[in-house]
């Protein structure tokens, strides 16, 4: 359903879209029924000369079933939707697959810093690649991320991944994603973080392993050439 509006490019995106669709049809159906009854009553019971209203208190059990039955329907739907929500949330937020790589994301007013592991696929080694407002990931690879903020609350949002996670100063928050299609997509900050909040865009590049290796190759040569001056 959401794919009609925006591409889905991660495994979690598919699950979240599924839940969205489930909710859409469940509540959509009952919503139409309720509106239909409302408008039906308005038309059917319009004031007519000589016709008096009926006296119905709605206190007896017999009368109350007109609201208690729909109420059971609401409860039943709630149970189904809660089950769906819990299942998807578990998969997205709680069952964390073993990552192939870890990246570090640092938010600050008003830029994103990304630390990519280099060709050795491990962080905190000399071949790490640091970029600003540009994130490069391999397709079909499971990533863990470590998110932090240097000043205020920001929110790391990648709409095509259906991923959003606040960056809270003082904490390192972890999460994961696994891209499923290549391309170039938007990253945004989703929490009001001051004057430059709208000016915190970053670009997500999801690359094939070859393209990613080529990009890393370029970067690590540069890093190697400048590493002498770094330390």
């Amino acid at each position, binding site marked *: 359903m959401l794919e009609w*509006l*925006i591409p889905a490019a991660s495994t979690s995106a598919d*699950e*979240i879209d599924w*839940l969205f669709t489930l*909710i859409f049809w469940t*509540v959509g159906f*009952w*919503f139409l029924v*309720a509106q239909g009854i*409302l408008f039906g009553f*308005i038309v059917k*019971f319009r004031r*007519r000369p000589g016709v*008096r*209203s*009926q*006296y*119905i*208190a*709605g*206190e007896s059990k017999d*009368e*109350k079933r*007109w*609201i208690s039955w*729909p*109420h059971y329907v609401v409860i039943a739907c*709630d149970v189904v*939707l809660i089950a769906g*929500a*819990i299942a998807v*949330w578990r998969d*997205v*937020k709680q069952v964390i697959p073993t990552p192939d790589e870890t990246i570090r994301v640092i938010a600050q007013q008003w830029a994103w810093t990304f630390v990519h592991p280099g060709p050795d696929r491990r962080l905190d080694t000399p071949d790490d690649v640091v970029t600003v407002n540009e994130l490069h990931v391999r397709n079909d690879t499971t990533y863990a991320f470590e998110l932090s903020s240097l000043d*205020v*609350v920001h*929110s790391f*949002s990648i*709409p*095509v991944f*259906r*991923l*959003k*996670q*606040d960056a*809270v*100063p*003082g904490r390192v928050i972890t999460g994961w994603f696994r891209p499923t299609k290549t391309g170039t*997509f*938007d990253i*945004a900050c989703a*929490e*009001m*973080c*001051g*004057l430059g*909040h*709208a*000016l915190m865009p970053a670009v997500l590049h999801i690359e094939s392993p070859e393209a990613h290796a080529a990009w890393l190759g370029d970067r690590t040569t540069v890093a190697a050439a400048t590493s002498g001056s770094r330390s």
Partner: protein
Amino acid sequence: MSMPATAHEVTAVHALESVWSRYVFSTDHKVIGLQYLFTGMAMALLGGFMAYVFRMQLAFPDQVVPLYGLVTAREYNALVTNHGSIMIFWVAMPVLIAGFGNFLIPLMIGCDDMVFPRLNRLSYQIFFVSAVIILISLVVPGGGFGGAWTAYPPLSASAQYNHTPWGAPLWLLAVALEFVAFLLGGINFTVTVMNARAPGMTAMRIPIVVWMIVIASLVFMASVGPLVAGAVMLLLDQTVGTRFYDPTAGGDPLLWQHLFWFFGHPEVYVVLLPATGIVAEIITVFARKKLFAYKTILGTSIATGIISFFVWAHHQFVAGIDPRMAHLFTITTLLISIPIAEMLFAFIATLYGGSIELATPMLWALAFIAEFLIGGVTGIFLGANATDIYLHDTYFVVAHFHYTFFPIGIIATFAAVTYWFPKMFGRRMNETLGKLHFWGTIIPFNLIFIPLFLTGAAGQHRRIYSYENFPQLSTPWLNQLAVLATLALIVMFVFQAVFLVNFFWSMRRGEKVGANPWNANTLEWSAPSPPPHGNFAAMPTVYRGPYEYGVPDRELDYWPQHVAS
């Protein structure tokens, strides 16, 4: 406005009073109610103007906005923040609870005034000061506060981050004062309803709107304490440099979020309950029906009030809380749909077998039900933790809560104003203008916010002054939706002129009416229109419940509460 003379002893003194003491420093609950109503309406124009300005920027980026000028990122943030704050704290609350609460409670329970009239006046005066302070906060050096109406620290706590050294503390001071005003009002309402009811006005004969205002006041009083504590800490962080919310000094930014939403979510129901109460009163009168399942509705309001305290962390699904907590809050959040849905079903059932007259107040009341249903069902997408990961802080949220807040804050207000106008001023509003205004508001309203569901589902975040930097989120199609929403807003504004004309013209020139033009049952309609200071010529006695319409074997299809037989 003329003040008919009555047997009430104070009238003679009052005749000598100046306009000043009668309309400005009055302790009469009706005058105070109207003061709240008029202040709220003026603030609504300001809050609406802000919406116009920032919507224009979204539809036509970086162009001069007529009547305003260029919108910078800084101004955009301040406009969004103050639009939200003003609409909630200076429009919805004062109009629905303070305005109609004040006007209706003594009239509906049959007493001459609030139990503490001076406290009541003080409450309005503090509220007025708070409104002045929020206005000042918009023009001080550095401009108005721009950290969103939720004011999350550390952004809101330090001028180094928010760049509004005066705007942020003044904003917070204004909000805090406003809370004090409503605390005083809430105490007064509760005490009055408990103690000052007319003989025969038993608990189960109290009109449902009065019940709901009292429940709302209690919910407000129970939720605001933690927030005031949080606000004091925030004010200290801002002004004297304490660091309650600063993690580098052992503070915690999430502490504020919990305190804020522990108040902020119940707050939604604080304004919702009076609004639904108003709708309930109106549908019974214009369907000539007894309110379906009065006791069940009362039970659902109490349940809603209670459950509203257990849902706050659904605003924090992506804030870095323990993921297990999200399950609990998903369950409680979806649970609240049960009493609310049941209440709406009871309203719909009330229409069954009725004799429905589509007068303007009834149109508004029915529109409330239809539109609020949209707000309700779209809330499920956000209450379900997993879909909220995606939808949080997008325009989907903006559309959802406007489908709840617009019915609450605007539709219910128009329902109430058009319904009680004859009581307030002794004259009727014009029906043709009323219907024109109704359609001129409802149709554009949907054209503003349905597009925003789509832009939100497509991933557009809120509080972003320009999408030019996001190629994927600013496709031509999304931009066209933004233009549609903005044009609809302009149309809606133009039609508000119809309301203003109708209101002020009818106040002086409208058709004169007697005490009970709608043939309604509740006690306020037994007082003269407009009621004098002291309300009733003789204190009423109550013989039955408020909704005896269409009683079999009676000649009249209504049976006022104060009529003995």
